[in-house]
């Protein structure tokens, strides 16, 4: 648009005096101004829209609670027979401008492994298996079925064995349940490094 103005003015320049020159400057100024304002406005909009792509969120990664070790429950609360139990993961997460007090940011399944072995070493992290309760297929919440001793997802009927793995038959889920890191602190406190993972992919990709 600007350039057209220029050529138009250029043509009449021969016959023109100071009036045409003023017109030329005016047009250029206005054109640049309009373009600049439009660029700034759209730039602002686009930056705003793309803001979630930025690595650094206004609330740092710690504030969402994911990726850090969090206390979940005590060892004694896990059934001795190896039944998996669902526990909420509680922390003080920040959502944009709100800091919540003790709010659940997801669910985990915990299960005593080597059930029935004696003596029970409640300080040994390998005694406890932990999984994110979200189905790796499309993200529904999985249930533990006591009778079958397996995990079952109602959404598309995915099944996982008690150790979180896929059963022999073909499963809907592209990968086993997402296991989580376990630490045992103090006198049998179970701490979990809570993470969410990309669903629907064969590889287990943590979401940051």
């Amino acid at each position, binding site marked *: 648009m600007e350039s057209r103005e220029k050529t138009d003015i250029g043509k009449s320049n021969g016959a023109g005096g100071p009036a045409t020159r003023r017109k030329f400057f005016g047009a250029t100024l206005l054109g640049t101004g309009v373009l600049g304002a439009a660029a700034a406005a759209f730039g602002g909009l686009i930056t705003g*829209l*793309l803001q*979630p*792509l930025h690595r650094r*969120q206004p609330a740092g990664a710690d504030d*969402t609670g994911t990726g850090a070790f969090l206390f979940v*429950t*005590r060892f*004694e*609360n896990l059934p001795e027979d190896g039944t998996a139990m*669902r526990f*909420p*993961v509680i922390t003080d997460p920040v*959502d*944009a*401008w*709100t800091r919540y007090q003790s*709010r*659940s*940011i*997801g*669910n985990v399944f915990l299960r005593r492994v080597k059930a029935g072995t004696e003596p029970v070493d409640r300080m040994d992290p390998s005694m406890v298996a932990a999984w994110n*309760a979200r189905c790796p*297929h*499309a*993200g*529904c*919440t999985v*249930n533990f079925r*006591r*009778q079958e001793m397996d995990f079952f997802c*109602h*959404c*598309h*009927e995915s099944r996982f064995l008690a150790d979180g793995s*896929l059963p022999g038959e*073909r*499963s*809907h*889920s*592209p990968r086993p349940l997402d296991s989580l890191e376990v630490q045992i602190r103090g006198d049998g406190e179970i701490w979990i490094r809570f993470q*969410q993972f*990309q*669903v*629907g*992919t*064969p590889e287990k990709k943590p*979401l940051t």
Partner: protein
Amino acid sequence: MIRLLINLVREWTGPAESHGSAGTDGGPTQAAAERNLLSIPARVLHFWVPDRGSWGFAMVVSILGCFGLLTVSGFALWLFYSPSVNSAWESVFFIENRVAFGHWIRGIHYLTSDVLIVLVIIYLIYQVLSHSYTRVGGLWFYLTLGLFGLILFSSLVGLLLPWDQQGYWSTRIRLDITSSLPVAGPVMAKILSGSEPLGHLSLTRSTVFHMGLVPPAIIFILLAMAGIHALDRKNRADAGRQPSSAALADILLRSGVVWMVTLLAIFLSGGLHMVLGGEENWGAPHLKGPADPASNYPIARPEWYFLWLFQSLKYFPGEMMIIGTAVIPGMLTLFILAMPIAGRHRWGHRANCTIGLFVLCVIAGLSLKAFLTDYWDEDYNIQRETAMMEGRRAVQLATDGIPPQGALAMLKQDPMTRGPELFAAHCASCHRYNGHDGQGLIPEDPQSAPDLFAFASVPWIEKLLQQSHFQSGRMFGGTEFREGEMAEFIEEDLSGLDDEDTTALTEVITALSAQAGLPYQTELDAESATEQMLATIASGREHLVYTFGCVDCHEFELPDEDATAPLLTGYGSKDWLTGFIANPAHPKFYGDSNDRMPAFLDESILTEEQIGLLADWIRQDWKFAPAPDIAGSWLKPDGN
């Protein structure tokens, strides 16, 4: 009637079309004046309407009408809507329950968007069948497709806005699937979600998409369509094809018919939700509970137009999932985009129609399958009913005013909502609640501890003190107490009583139950009880101590170091119950003779708050509580 309408329209538009011939029924001056007056709207109309009647044009008119309805109702809703995690659900509740006609406005907005989607789909099919999808080199068809895409997008984004469980979870899953798509998937999901995990910023963003960006984009497309249409009309007019007033009448009639059908569909789709979805009122589906990211919402389903994709995921297990999420939708899109091009050839058009019909049938079949699977699935229906009840309960509590922390926090402190969850998770492997696990399901483990429905009420204690019931599976039959001292006492001292003692026992039961201060037994309440009742209670206390000698084992009123059985002071009250759940093996309660019950507080299985909620729930001590239905339970006289 229709004749009349056509004639009316013809009369009205007549002068513009019949140049000069109008002079017959009036003076020449009058005719000219009439022409001047009437010709403007008539010309405008003639400029826009096609030269023959067409259902396609009528559908466009209805699409415009729906868009108008959505815009107007949308603005009305926008006046009250507040996008943030602790105000979105709350403001929609306010719209539904406090704003004049709010329920109707939201209903119209919701249902119209569904009907609009159907309408655009029908219009697309119509274009293919009438072979008009090649119009302007397919541009018209593509613009319609663009419109369709925008409407779908806006509808999907709009579902999150109420921030209830349904909207939250369907969005959650949709975003997860989006981010699993190859190449641009993760980036798109991030831009759409606004923040991860979903929160305030997802709502502000969805608001902008739904109310700020999509409507102008739709208007832009509609303007482009209008422009093309006008050009098209002009070309035809230049070629000497003038529309006739009969055609105009025809057009108006068809548009009217389609619009009426559209309105009827909006009305009926509300009815459909009532018949198939179990809704109580006409309008948008009832709000579910406020979104709780930490909850388990197993009944999350996509909207009806994506149900077929949801179903198709079931056929592509494991690594083949991408076929269902990306390949099939991608191929379908490509096919639709190629249709106008292929349609230029005769065989191409036939192929379009055949393949299109086939695809439609498959989609319809899959959708039906998905719907029926859920419809017949008992578990699904129970869980759905639970979700709907939670929604109704949240609304019921909200009518009393929502605390500043928001509706989710409010619901989290409601014994009626939390009790069943906690009971099912922590108690129901041994106890029952009127035969079920508190949530209406029968647990897998057999019952091995008392049924706690209406615990400590008069009928409950009556059952407790009858040997047949005490030793039955409903009470202590599954515990060590089956053969304990209490069982012995009931057998020896409480059976075969004479009339006098029977009356005394009834009074003891009344006195004991009065200790609990149950909110639904107001007749026993010290403040509201009648003189006569107070006398009964007083005499019951006497009998408890002196006639039956309960204090030989139980502590009652006076401190008793040697008591071996649970405390009877304040029996069944909130203090008693929370203390008991906290640690039943406390010397006040069972002491060493505790059977299997864990110390829920001392072993930090439950928090104090959770125990309080559980106790309140067992005592049915909650807001807006109906009295428990004793007559419909096993506690009714002679029930078992």
